């Protein structure tokens, strides 16, 4: 639940999602769900020459299970808030 809430707060920000097949897609975070599936708007593949497979895709849905990393804007991370939330969650479980 923690990361679901965290990503909900990041909606509207530019992120780069790196997938487990090495594909990297940059776009605006449109929405996220409980499985951490990600919907990106205005998406474009980072290395378009190497991966032209999604040239005509502007909005995409990325299944949570294939995400390796989500690269965030540095000012998108409130480390203190995350630490507190993590401590609370760790205590709860």
């Amino acid at each position: 639940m923690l990361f679901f809430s965290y990503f909900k707060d990041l909606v509207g920000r530019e992120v780069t999602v790196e997938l487990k097949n090495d594909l990297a897609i940059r776009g605006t975070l449109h929405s996220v769900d409980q499985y951490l599936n990600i919907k990106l708007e205005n998406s474009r593949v980072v290395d378009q020459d190497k991966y032209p497979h999604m040239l005509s895709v502007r909005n995409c849905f990325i299944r949570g299970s294939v995400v390796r990393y989500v690269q965030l804007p540095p000012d998108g991370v409130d480390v203190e808030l995350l630490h507190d939330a993590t401590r609370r969650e760790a205590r709860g479980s």
Partner: protein
Amino acid sequence: MLLSELISVITNDGRNIVGILKGFDQATNIILDESHERVYSTKEGVQQIVLGLYIIRGDNISIVGELDEDLEARLDLTELRAHPLKPVIH
């Protein structure tokens, strides 16, 4: 919302399947009509293999992309050369 739209599905084994989204569920299982697979190669243009009505199991799906008609029209698939996509490794 994306129902009856043309979409592009990237599967876990690196295949690209294009078709009209007819249905889906919570597990991201997908029903695709008039689907065809686009096979990319470094040696020749994009090959299109007609598949018809397909159900793709959610387990096997990486990306579901909404195809932009204008961008699609501008694409010259015969000139595109690319390495096939890598399979997903968990």
